């Protein structure tokens, strides 16, 4: 297989790779954003648990 020929796609490489590239880019960006969103949500739950524990510990003393 000739890679140069493959990437040129009959000289229509811009259209083909423009499509596949944007498709891939969107998916990668979405995955990163969702990952960050759930990480942040879990972190805030962890924070609130930690805050709650220290609060009860103080009242116990």
């Amino acid at each position, binding site marked *: *297989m000739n890679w140069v020929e*493959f990437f040129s*796609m*009959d000289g*229509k490489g811009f*259209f*083909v790779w*423009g*499509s*596949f590239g*944007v*498709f891939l880019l*969107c*998916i990668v960006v*979405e*995955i990163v954003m*969702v*990952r960050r*969103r*759930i990480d*942040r*949500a*879990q972190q*805030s*739950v*962890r924070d*609130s*648990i930690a805050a*709650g524990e220290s609060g009860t510990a103080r009242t116990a003393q």
Partner: protein
Amino acid sequence: MNLFKYSAPSSFYPLAGKLVPWFGTLAFVAAVIGLYLGLFVAPEDFQQGEVYRIIFIHVPTAWMAMFIYLLMAGYAVLALVYQTRLSAMMMEALAPTGAMFTAIALWTGALWGKPTWGTYWAWDARMTSTLILLFLYVGYIALVNAIEDKKRADKAGALLVLVGSVNVPIIYFSVKWWNTLHQGASISVSQGNKMAAIMLASMAIMAFACWMYSMAVAFCRVRAIILEREGQSQWVKSIKEAVS
């Protein structure tokens, strides 16, 4: 198995967590196979040349754009009739992915249209209705984000999607009608039964990959939404899995 058990966020959260890697793996494997078949195995189309390979992502994303809206309409019915919080959360989790697929379908359609029809955009019935579908997604997302009271946002979004889904067939029909009336862009899409089996297979596998990807992302997002809304409740704090 009692399906209603999983309509509670507290029991769905861990289940979704277990399912996400499976869906993600299936999506990845299917995408690799589909792209390999589409880019390397499928022969060149004798009419359109290599450019036709765009349809291996264009058609699956266009399908997903419609399918996700239908799915949201289904969840909207559940949210309004059974008042299940989880259904509304699923709608909120699906909408961004649906909008993204709609935008990709339009983008790839334009890039396919330029070399094939000679124009990036034609007011063709399918492209126009896909554009309107994007507007519907944008309206839903804007409404849900604008309402601060989450309970109200859930119900308002569900009602909007329900009204929108009743309108979708009417919109599609009206746009088709309008298009045939004007005869502006007389475009014949060379698809249908002429397509080789290998092309169809690759397209179906890509559609499956997009579907699995949507499920994985939506489940992941719905987990985040559950935590954001119910982070203060007891069940979240009681299970370690929630925060690990």
